[in-house]
């Protein structure tokens, strides 16, 4: 068959979203649970299609579709991450139905659920566009698409003060970071006169002017992106928003925008790495940001008693680990210590374990009416299955071998050690120990303590299936990472895509 054009994926997703909206508005009120199931199915199909798309198509360099959009290996990889994340988030939102209904009183039962199922689809489209964006225009626009939809999702539960407060905080700080992002883009455009990353790269390859304006611009852009990936010191919103937002949205925030943000981050800083007097300082500032995130996230997570909030801090921490890898983007792709591989793999693993923990958390929280750590006491009595799932997730987050999380840390620190970043490694030592502490607190609660009420927890088939699948995936990919690493290759390596790969997947300090 003739390979699909990659953008069909986004198109299908958008159509799905619009369809859901229409269905919501025209269907008579009633049970809406078919919607997420249907869209999960569609997303799964799209996921499947993504293996049959053509790579980048060569066309005139005078601008046009392919100057904004790239479908190289990493792009496809992150599209798939977005799709998977969205599908699992929809599963969560099914489990979360009751809370939503309680929080948004409509005229009819289930009013507003449709939008709650539809908006993530559009977010997914935005994430997919982000994954492919190689031009500041598209980066900005798709980023905003994601952000705006997240504004709505975070504040979705209008009855719950927490949700609204989180929404406002996210809105203000998000808009602020957007301001910085735009201002930064402005500066980069001003210096280089281009918005396309490849063109910026080629312009900068013989750049003579003073580095200050460039650094100023790139820093402002980093502010915007750092906000998206929850890196210190732009993490300030994370704990509150994560805690206040509806749990599925929290999960989505911590996975989706982080993943896309990191891809964009790598694409954006890459052209600057080669510029004398700029590249090294960009990496230096990355080191600072990484160190701050590691410390802030891990240390802040230790005293937390609310699991959701603790996971928020841990999300900052993981941003830190990913940034450690970003600071050592230089090695050749495919060898141990290649930062791109590390980041991609880490994000995939992070997706699995975070979503797993959030899914379990939603179920447990519904049964023991609360998402503090104490609510997990004696879970291994109430539901060994959930306890095991949570155990796997926590161990993976803590980075215990034979879980995806360990491979992630392994690759990250391999990259760091190869670049001799022993400062970050030293901080990593502290933070890993701290990580063991706060993740194992959950394990201890589940296995050491006795439950308040011994009532068993029954789980719907779909959740059971998804939890089992995620746990299995964590362990399997923790032993055989090859499948994930293989996904990073280009769909069809043509000349253009090689170039695209150079700009995206294999930056190197010439």
């Amino acid at each position: 068959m003739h390979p699909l054009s990659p953008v069909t994926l986004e198109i299908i997703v958008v159509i799905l979203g619009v369809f859901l909206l229409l269905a919501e508005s025209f269907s008579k009120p009633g049970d809406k649970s078919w919607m997420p199931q249907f869209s999960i199915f569609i997303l799964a199909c799209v996921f499947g299609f993504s293996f049959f798309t053509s790579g980048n198509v060569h066309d005139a360099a005078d601008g046009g579709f392919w100057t904004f959009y790239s479908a190289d290996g990493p792009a496809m990889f992150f599209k798939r991450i977005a799709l998977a994340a969205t599908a699992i988030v929809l599963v969560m939102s099914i489990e979360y139905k009751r809370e939503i209904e309680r929080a948004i009183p409509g005229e009819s039962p289930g009013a507003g659920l449709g939008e709650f199922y539809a908006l993530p689809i559009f977010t997914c489209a935005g994430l997919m566009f982000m994954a492919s964006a190689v031009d500041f225009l598209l980066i900005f626009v798709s980023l905003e698409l994601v952000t705006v939809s997240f504004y709505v999702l975070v504040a979705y539960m209008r009855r719950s003060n927490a949700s609204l407060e989180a929404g406002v905080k996210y809105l203000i700080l998000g808009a602020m970071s957007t301001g910085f992002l735009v201002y930064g883009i402005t500066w980069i455009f001003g210096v280089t006169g281009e918005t396309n990353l490849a063109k910026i790269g080629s312009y900068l390859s013989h750049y003579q002017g003073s580095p200050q304006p460039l650094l100023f611009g790139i820093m402002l852009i980093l502010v915007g992106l750092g906000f998206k990936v929850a890196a210190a010191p732009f993490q300030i919103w994370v704990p509150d928003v994560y805690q206040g937002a509806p749990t599925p949205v929290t999960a989505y925030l911590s996975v989706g925008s982080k993943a896309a943000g990191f891809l964009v981050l790598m694409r954006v800083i890459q052209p600057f790495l080669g510029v004398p007097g700029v590249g090294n300082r960009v990496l230096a500032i990355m080191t600072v940001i990484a160190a701050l995130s590691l410390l802030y996230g891990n240390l802040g997570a230790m005293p937390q008693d609310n699991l959701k909030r603790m996971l928020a801090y841990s999300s900052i921490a993981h941003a830190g680990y990913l940034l450690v890898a970003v600071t050592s983007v230089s090695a050749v792709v495919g060898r141990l210590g290649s930062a791109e591989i590390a980041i991609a793999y880490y994000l995939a693993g992070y997706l699995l374990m975070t979503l797993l923990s959030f899914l379990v958390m939603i179920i447990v929280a519904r049964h023991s009416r609360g998402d503090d750590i104490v609510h997990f006491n004696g879970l291994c009595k109430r539901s060994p299955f959930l306890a095991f799932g949570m155990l796997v997730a926590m161990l993976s987050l803590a980075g215990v071998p034979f879980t995806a999380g360990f491979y992630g840390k392994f690759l990250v620190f391999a990259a760091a050690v190869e670049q001799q970043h022993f400062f970050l490694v030293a901080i990593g030592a502290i933070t890993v120990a701290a990580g063991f502490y706060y993740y194992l607190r959950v394990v201890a609660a589940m296995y050491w303590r006795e439950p308040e009420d011994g009532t068993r927890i029954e789980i719907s088939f779909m959740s059971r299936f998804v939890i089992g699948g995620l746990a299995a995936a964590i362990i399997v990919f923790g032993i055989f990472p090859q499948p994930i690493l293989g996904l990073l290759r280009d769909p069809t390596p043509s000349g253009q895509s090689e170039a695209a790969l150079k700009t995206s997947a294999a930056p190197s300090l010439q």
Partner: protein
Amino acid sequence: MALTLNDYLLVSGMLFAIGFAGVMLRRNIIIIFMCLELMLNAANLSLVAFSRFNLTARILPDGTHTLVPNYNAQILVFFIITVAAAEVAVGLAIIVALYRARQTTHVEDITSLKF
């Protein structure tokens, strides 16, 4: 003397800083929101200035070359304005919802999530 690019950049920078300061200083969420608009428009100003400054080659219908402002930047400005409008809409909706729930638009009153 003629105006230089830096004059515009300086002015826009100051506008940006004013918005920035407003976000940090004001307590009323709506006004904070206005300040965010200020920041975005400051960016717009410098963008337009740059687009005027970095002329690009352009082929006229009659085949002759000429220099025109870099319209990519102006398109970006256009997008920014649109996005800003959308953000305002959503933001104000959230603020309204907040006001309904809590009868306030002051940041001191929404500090239940902390530590």
